[in-house]
């Protein structure tokens, strides 16, 4: 029973932390219809910027939002490489990802920055409540509601943004660029907005995960795009894709389910080294099951 409880708590905690990543990947992978490899650099960039600021005793919330701003900048740079230098969007992402590896090392100063003794957005928030006379512990029972509130705010911002004039133009840029340009939209600009927003969410995720796990590491971004894509695909496979709001909720649920499946895989005796294989199988299932289901029931 205790084991099940630990599993469920871990699922929600890690799921919500990685859901920001899933939402960022949703923007590029689904709305812009290409896998943006900038994520592999902007996710650790978020961790690196947050870590570098936290060890300098910067306020954790300031550090976390600075990480998101750094991620947004990375996304804008990828968009500039793609639009102004006319380089294929996947190659542009690979170039940004490569450059960010060195930048992340420079930001951190070393390959791994421990954050166990520095305050975090979690310890900071718990501290506020405890000043009000509560006596909250800094553990998974307090992290989950804190991340959930941040995630709910992030999801609402995304849903709201994609119903504005600019948001519609950004979505249409990925769906039918010729058409939206013929309605007077400068698609170079909407690509910057979309990639910037996407990588801001991804870096925000990296900053939160670093604070939750107690370290930022240069290798934390390896394979992260696939993790985000898995969340998107699992969410779609289970919930479908009706409206932007529905899609956002599906991706959050997809991330939580992905973390549960990973935790279960470890529970049934697989080793951490097997996790990439598990992810690959999950991706294949998420891609094929909806097709198969349509075939059987459709």
């Amino acid at each position, binding site marked *: 029973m205790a084991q099940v409880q630990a599993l469920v708590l871990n699922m929600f905690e890690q799921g919500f932390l990685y859901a920001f990543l899933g939402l960022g990947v949703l923007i590029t992978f689904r709305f812009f219809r290409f896998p943006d490899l900038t994520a592999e650099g902007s996710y650790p960039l978020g961790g690196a910027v947050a870590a570098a600021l936290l060890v300098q005793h910067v306020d954790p919330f300031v550090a976390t939002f600075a990480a998101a701003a750094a991620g947004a900048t990375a996304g804008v740079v990828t968009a500039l490489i793609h639009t102004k230098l006319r380089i294929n969007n996947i190659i542009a992402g690979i170039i940004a990802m490569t450059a960010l590896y060195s930048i992340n090392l420079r930001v951190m100063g070393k390959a791994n920055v421990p954050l166990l003794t520095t305050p975090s957005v979690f310890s900071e928030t718990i501290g506020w409540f405890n000043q009000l006379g509560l006596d909250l512990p800094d553990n998974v029972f307090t992290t989950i509601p804190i991340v959930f509130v941040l995630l709910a705010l992030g999801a609402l911002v995304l849903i709201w943004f994609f119903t*504005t004039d600019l948001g519609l*133009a950004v979505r*249409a840029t990925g769906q*039918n660029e010729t058409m939206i340009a*013929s*309605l*007077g939209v400068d698609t170079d600009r909407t690509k910057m907005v979309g990639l910037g927003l996407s990588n801001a969410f991804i870096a925000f995720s990296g900053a939160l995960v670093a604070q939750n796990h107690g370290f930022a590491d240069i290798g934390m971004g390896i394979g992260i795009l696939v993790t985000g894509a898995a969340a998107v695909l699992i969410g779609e496979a289970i919930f479908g894709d009706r409206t932007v709001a529905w899609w956002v909720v599906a991706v959050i649920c997809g991330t939580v389910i992905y973390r549960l499946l990973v935790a279960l895989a470890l529970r049934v005796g697989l080793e951490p080294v097997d996790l990439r294989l598990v992810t690959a199988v999950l991706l294949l299932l998420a891609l094929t099951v909806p097709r198969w289901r349509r075939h059987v029931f459709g």
Partner: protein
Amino acid sequence: MTPILSLNGVTKRFHGGTPSEVLALSEVNLAVAAGDFVTIIGSNGAGKSTLLNAIAGLVDLDAGTIAFEGRDVTRAPVYRRAAVIGRIDQDPGDSTCAAMTIEENLAMAERRGMHRGLRRAVTASARARFAAALAPIGLGLQTRLAARVGTLSGGQRQALALLMATIAGARLLLLDEHLAALDPRTADIVMGLTERLVVAHNMTTLMITHKMQDAIRIGNRLIMMHEGRIILDVRDAAKAALTVDALVARFHQAGGDISEDRVLLAT
């Protein structure tokens, strides 16, 4: 009076410098007066689509200039010209966004050439406006505002594209065989809608068609293109007096091989 659109010596080569070089537009001069409805005919590869794409800014010219209301727009990107130019292509998939809803498509079209900020795109008043604009079309789209455009038929999508092209201040309408993918009955409905909207919004229109009868019946001016040049340009009474046979004869005279062309099939 300054023409609304004027092309001077417009030239465009594709695959320049290679054995497969094609001269798509060869020193084309064209002045279109405000309110003109010009139909454009010609065989495949005559340069009709390249002409419209050059006006819209989709192709860079090798030589020549294009001016809109006396203002040189030769180097202006597509999105800048779009403030005054509405455009519909042959493929119903091109001029609307399939993954988005009817109301979202119309909301995007309503902001043509305007700043797009963080204002809510689809408001209750916008929905009322869209429903009122869609109702007269007669395709029942006003009750399906929240439906994805991808679920519509080709005719419904072209009708929506027409509304999107005319809803917000564009003064020039470019139609590149926008009926070609539709069945004859739907094509008639969409053509009727085209004529109504062009009159209602007082738009200057250039329409490519492969139906000679349409080209003669519709509009006040007809041009025929061949090998990148305008080889016939008639208007008003002279245009009204044209016959399909006369056009085919004119076409032969220009050396066009009409036997293997859709033009003949469509007569």
